[in-house]
């Protein structure tokens, strides 16, 4: 166990955990931020996607020891009122079915649009390739990303 000082959604947080603990479980079990989801634990599904200094990373693969000194953003922190253009587009297209994968999808989409505000279909396919949706909402996700790209 060791103490780690983290910056999550702009707030300073301190946790006392095993250095190998993935950020996924630090967020969910220790910081009460359960929006970031567990899907596979091996970087295959994207449900756990968060931002590290703005870039999308799989939090199941990010040990807490590597998360100090960077800015961590989770689904709870991308906007104050749930009104980020990507979130708004998600509402407009009524994207979710079961909804479980959607936090991860949104985090990947936000990171994509930050780097590439007007992505092509292929850019979207590539950026979203790490996010599985078992319910099959891919066409709506893509449409929502295009709508959001007009408003970022």
């Amino acid at each position, binding site marked *: 166990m060791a103490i780690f000082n983290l910056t999550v959604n702009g707030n300073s947080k301190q946790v006392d955990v095993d250095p190998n603990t993935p950020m996924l479980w630090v967020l969910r079990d220790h910081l009460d931020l359960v929006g970031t989801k*567990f899907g596979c634990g091996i970087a*295959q599904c994207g449900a756990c996607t968060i931002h590290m200094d703005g870039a999308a990373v799989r939090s199941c693969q990010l040990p807490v020891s590597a998360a100090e000194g960077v800015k961590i953003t989770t689904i709870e922190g991308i906007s104050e009122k749930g009104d980020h253009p990507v979130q708004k587009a998600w509402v407009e297209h009524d994207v979710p079915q079961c*909804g*479980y994968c959607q936090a991860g999808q949104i985090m990947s989409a936000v990171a994509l649009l930050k780097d590439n505000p007007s992505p092509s279909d292929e850019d979207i396919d590539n950026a979203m390739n790490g996010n*599985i949706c078992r319910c*099959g909402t*891919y*066409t709506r996700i893509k449409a929502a990303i295009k709508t959001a790209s007009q408003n970022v």
Partner: protein
Amino acid sequence: MQNQFSNLSRRSFLKSSALAGGGLLLSFSWLAGCKPNTEELLTLPEEWFRMNGYIRIGDNGVITIMSPNPEGGQNIKTSMPMIVAEELDADWSKVIVEQAPLDTENFTRQFIGGSQAIRVGWTPLRTAGATARLLLMQAAAKSWNVPVSEIKTENGFLNHQSSNKKAHYGELASLAATLPIPEEVTLKNPSDFKLIGTSKKNVDVPKIITGKPLFGIDYKKEGMKIAMIIQPPAFGMKLKSFDASQAKRMPGIVDIFQVKSLQDDYKRTFFDTVQFTDLIAVVGNSTWEVMNAKKAVELEYELMESYEEKRDMFGREGSRFVPGGLESDDSQEQKMQEASKNARVQRKDGDPETAFARASQIIERTYTAPFLVHNCMEPMNFFAHVNGDKVHCAGPLQKPELTEQALSNRLGIPVENIEIEMTRLGGGYGRRSYAHWLIEAAVISQKVNAPIKLIYTREDDMTAGIYRSRYQITYRAALDENNDLIGFHINGGGLPENPLHPNRFPAGAVENYLVEGWEVPSNVTTGSFRAPRSNFNASAEQSFLDEVAEAAGKDPLEFRIELLKKAKAKPIGENNDYDPDRYIGVLELVKNKSDWGKQENGISRGVSAYFCHNSYAAQVMDLKVENGQVAIQKVITAVDCGIVVNPDAAKNLCEGAVIDGIGTAMFGEQTFEKGVPKNKNFDTYRMIRMKEAPKKIETYFVENNVDPTGLGEPAYPPVFAALANSLYQATGKRIYNQPFSKQISF
């Protein structure tokens, strides 16, 4: 208009009105029609008045509608309350939707399964709305001293024109709540629907997109511990001994012990399927610590003996032979081949033998499909707190009512002392009907005497069983010299489940018809999987009919219509389980919307149609194969599911069915090596991803006033064959075995 007995008992009414609660629940809920901005929430009422189990009306006119069934992505948490609101004439923008807990007194059939929520809920939900509306009208009549027949309702208001009186529902709710429940109410004529048939946004989306706790895996309670289980590595094995002395000393570990989920002498019911009942439980303070300790437990397993499992199948005595031994793909296949030679007749019309003897052309093809894993994105989990003789559970499950019985039996605690809260399901698809993990969670909680949340890792989830069965069907078709289909022979079965629906199309359309089925016992546990059995039948049958049409020199879509017309004009045999007109209806619709017959350069198209869960669906798929890579351009789906409650949500569900169907057909597969499931996580169990999804999906509904039928499943089964048939057009190769990716790169 339709008169309906309200069936809402005075007793349950009195009991519920006594429960009329304050605004406490509001903080967890968003208004149905609301955007995710808190300031847009309406002011809370000071007092709530309970009209019945479904409806509470606040003194300020805000209405809470309970959604009775669990929500797993079918969007019933929006569409079921819409049905209530329609008959209530409520203002949807002032409706708050709440998930009801398991409550058998106020609600019926709180299930997910068989695409039945809307179909079965249709009349009760409408009646609940209409009853509350009538109570409000009676209250208005009483206080305004006018005849009830002169009162009109609209958008949450009552009015009486000639006396110029008007009031919102909240103003009369307190009086309405004291009136006796009417015995009979009149339901609207569907042509008067205002809300049903309009698209309303999913009421949970604001929470989903902001990461609010909604799912079982998010559930937390003061003092809660995390638990995980260790199950045997192979089907056919069971726990012999274990040594956790080292693992117990690891940081954050509370205890490690052996648990028995279902007792050996327990008479299981239909959904009590689980192979591994002797497990190791690891309980600790945090998920990561428990995951690590799990790996440090030393385990020894032994071979399991064969046994006979007795079951209560909804009142019918059932039994299942569970063979010992470690099964592998080859050994399973061999047994399936043997069993197919000893099939039993499930349906016979005319004289199939003679028909085949005089055929001028016989086509015979065999189709196979492997075990499938449900792979809900939210791994299995459940919260349980067994506190003396009281039980509180919360989490995602499809059949709470049935699980409650099993739980009561296992713990020896009466059902009245068990409370089950239903959280949103991160996918179900049948998997969460088999709630052994809820029993496991409760047994673990009882043992450690603390609230616990049981979580399966993805590996636990993928190797725990309850798969879709392994199937095989051989079809034979006899064509005469005029290319008329004169004989049809189906020989099909599965390990362990037989997939056949002997009375479905093309039964009824062919003079000489033979259906033979078989089963092979297995110790691999299986269960319902989105559109059970239909998911394979449709893929095999609709691929085969395509080939028969070709052999007969006919257009595949017209060939299906021709057969259906025959079945309509002169149905062969008895118990034919479909309506040819509605079947033809979806084929005509998809033909029209796809401009069937039009040739586009480089585009290959295939068609498929199926009937299941009381609804009809047809698809046309357009794809290209470039440099050996498949690219799906467009899928058009036509569905007849009667009245569509929430069209955009219904389309979403059908789009999902299309993508899920393509993914499963291409990649879905679980296989075994000496009892060990080969795929344990998404690195080897391939799932469809965005780039493989169709570029465009269009969905159309047949417009009619038939009471709603299923929608969660019907659009799924035909997709497989639409894909196989369009791939054939593109490559000239027929595909007989799933997953298709073994034969074509995708």
